[in-house]
């Protein structure tokens, strides 16, 4: 079963999608886009404020609809610095860039987001950061440009 030169056919999948956020996340992004407000959702049974918001609590399976204001300041709980890239890249910034998980004040869970305006060696777990909002906001997670040191 020899095959001298392998026969390769180059091809592609190029398929568009539109994934709805749903009513709850749409409300989160309207507040972010129109009022630069970051909202969490509270589970009264587990007395936890979740961000990102979700309409069901995984632990008690209750329906969640109680919005809570969450601060735009928080603490970095972990981070990484991305050095690799790939093509075609969807990376939101040029490498190397940093992203991390930020525990916002008054929230019980962390939000994954980008870290900016600091050199990589300055980032540390536990540092205080605050959200930087884009001027032109479209209702998605990148309406927050990144989190920078307070």
């Amino acid at each position: 079963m020899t095959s001298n030169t392998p026969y390769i056919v180059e091809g592609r999948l190029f398929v568009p999608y539109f994934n709805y956020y749903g009513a709850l996340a749409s409300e989160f992004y309207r507040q972010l886009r129109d009022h630069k407000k970051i909202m969490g959702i509270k589970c009264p049974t587990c007395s936890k404020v979740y961000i990102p918001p979700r309409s069901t609590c995984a632990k008690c399976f209750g329906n969640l609809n109680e919005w809570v204001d969450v601060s735009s300041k928080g603490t970095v709980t972990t981070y990484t610095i991305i050095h690799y890239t790939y093509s075609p890249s969807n990376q939101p910034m040029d490498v190397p860039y940093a992203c991390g998980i930020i525990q916002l004040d008054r929230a019980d869970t962390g939000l994954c987001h980008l870290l900016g305006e600091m050199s990589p060696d300055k980032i540390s777990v536990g540092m205080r950061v605050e959200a930087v909002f884009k001027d032109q906001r479209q209702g998605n997670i990148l309406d927050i440009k990144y989190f920078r040191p307070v």
Partner: protein
Amino acid sequence: MSKAKEKETQEYLGLSHVLNLSFNWSAGPYLGKWLTELRDNGKLWASRCPKCQRLLLPPRIVCGICHIRTPEWPDWLQLSGKGKLLEWEKVVAPQMNPSTGKIEPEPYIHGNILLDEGVTFQHYLEEQDETKLKEGTRVEVVLKPREERQGLVTDILYFRIVEE
């Protein structure tokens, strides 16, 4: 009905994105050889399952019915490229091409051809006027010129009606 009406007024957001994924698909020793023969020598082949003797087009490593390995080239049967039209399909509604994301009309009518050697094959038909097509019409393969052939099934331009 208020829930439905409320659905209209509220603004529903979402993420619009494109899955843009490149592939280097391997054709393998069976399909790869078939495409090489078509491109370089303008020849069409089919392999035969040693157990149930049915012709396999495209040639493939295993006969799905007998679950046994099938022979590689050159133990294949060369096809004449002649056959008769079983049925055809005029695709009216343009379809999205999943490798470009564009909605593209079909350039030709699709024909399902029973090749003289006893295996069917699907390809374009030159004849665009359906009134001229009838079941059993004799057809034959038309290849693109050698320099235009790229080692794809579309190296075959289409099948044309054989004037009796």
